[in-house]
């Protein structure tokens, strides 16, 4: 709890919290604007891509925030006070990811209301799962950015951007089967998943994101445990 408040305050002072909260909204606004000019094609793919970019940038913000925590000595100040390193890196993953998820959810709902559905009006549950599923990739991306940030202080922004962008780009390139991969939420948003299965696909995507985030977080924590502060 104390650590969570500390992370929120750090993010707020660094203005990164503002970035995390505003990125999805800006992405949605851009998508809606572009969509308005090019309707009815290309559907809601624009919004999916805009959200993917926002997710990458959010992850980079989280990664650089954590790197700054290490560089400034704040991380070591906490570690000598018996804060386990795993808890510290866990707080830096969970707290900003949660803030990003809330922002994505709000932006997704606003964009969903602004952009007409491609075929038929989906039910509210589908919208909620679609929005959460599209926001969920931020968590593994953030975990990846943390892992990069642990090791590569100084060049974390560039490395985290490339790394997280690669994670997003792989499923975007492999469009063939959008059923099960962490970025399936984007397809839900874009209305590209098969009709009748959006909830299943969304839940699968969320689960996969959380599993991937766990693996990446463990990797990041392992690297952080061996790092000199």
């Amino acid at each position: 709890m104390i650590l969570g408040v500390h992370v929120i305050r750090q993010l707020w002072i660094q203005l990164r919290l503002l970035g995390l909260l505003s990125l999805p909204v800006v992405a949605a606004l851009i998508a809606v604007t572009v969509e308005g000019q090019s309707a009815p094609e290309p559907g809601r793919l624009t919004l999916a891509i805009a959200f993917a970019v926002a997710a990458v940038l959010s992850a980079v913000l989280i990664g650089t925030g954590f790197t700054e925590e290490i560089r400034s000595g704040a991380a070591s100040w906490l570690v000598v006070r018996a804060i386990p390193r795993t808890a510290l890196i866990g707080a830096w993953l969970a707290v900003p990811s949660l803030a990003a998820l809330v922002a994505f959810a709000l932006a997704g709902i606003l964009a969903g209301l602004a952009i007409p559905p491609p075929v038929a009006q989906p039910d509210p549950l589908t919208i909620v799962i679609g929005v959460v599923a599209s926001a969920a990739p931020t968590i593994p991306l953030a975990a990846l950015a943390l892992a990069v940030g642990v090791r590569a202080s100084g060049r974390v922004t560039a490395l985290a951007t490339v790394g997280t962008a690669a994670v997003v780009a792989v499923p975007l390139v492999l469009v063939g089967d959008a059923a099960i991969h962490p970025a399936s939420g984007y397809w839900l948003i874009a209305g590209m998943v098969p009709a009748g299965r959006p909830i299943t696909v969304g839940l699968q995507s969320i689960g996969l994101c959380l599993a991937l985030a766990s693996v990446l977080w463990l990797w990041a924590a392992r690297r952080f445990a061996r790092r000199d502060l």
Partner: protein
Amino acid sequence: MPISTPDALWSSPAARRLRPVAIEISGLARTVGGEALLDGVDLAISAGARVLVAGLDPNAPSLLLRIMAGLARADRGTVVLAGLLREASIPEGWARRIGFVGADPGIPLWMTPAESLDLAARLAGIDGPQRQRLIDTSLQNFQLGAIRDRPLRHAGRNIAERTALAAALLPDPEVLLLDEPLRAHPPPDRLRLLRIPGEHRTVLIASRFPAQEGGIVDRVVLIRDGRVALHAPIEELDAQRLPLSLRGMTALADLGLVGQQ
């Protein structure tokens, strides 16, 4: 718990007479960039000692203290501080029994001195009315009362350093590790602040400038070639008419006083 708390410990006449070991390091080694900065350090320091740790390689003492504090890893060896063995996990009671202040204060500069001390107290598990009382006393002792609510970034580096020392002392640790502390302070202020209270508290100071630590330490440790080349009472330097400097400590080490406790 491996040993009792300081008060309970020192209430025993036998403990007062025997002066138990507060710091025990054995076989500590760490290679950085292909260079063995620490290569089998063995060191035992009695409770209540004030120890200067210097090294021919100026990075070695700092690295030793950072390993002891859990900020850097050792390639091998063990460290026991105040009876607590720190390995991968952090022993219970660590935050209240071990304090560390680095050359960089480390406290987020947007915090005020009062906020920093409050966070330090919370993390040490100090709750209730005792917390505020300790914070107020600490602010007063370190002359931070007038700027208690001013962000550290506007208060200056010396205030940040002083706050870091106050935060480290707040939980009344048994062992205090100081890595090049208070360098932004003028020497007289620095010496005054580094006369750490607590007869039974063990204090280690890593310093690149041993001559500046005169008057605040009673023992000296010299690390040479990654090992403890000298561990002696400071009176030995005086007895041999040697200055408190790297050169003086090296000369004393060459006289064969290695490992004196």
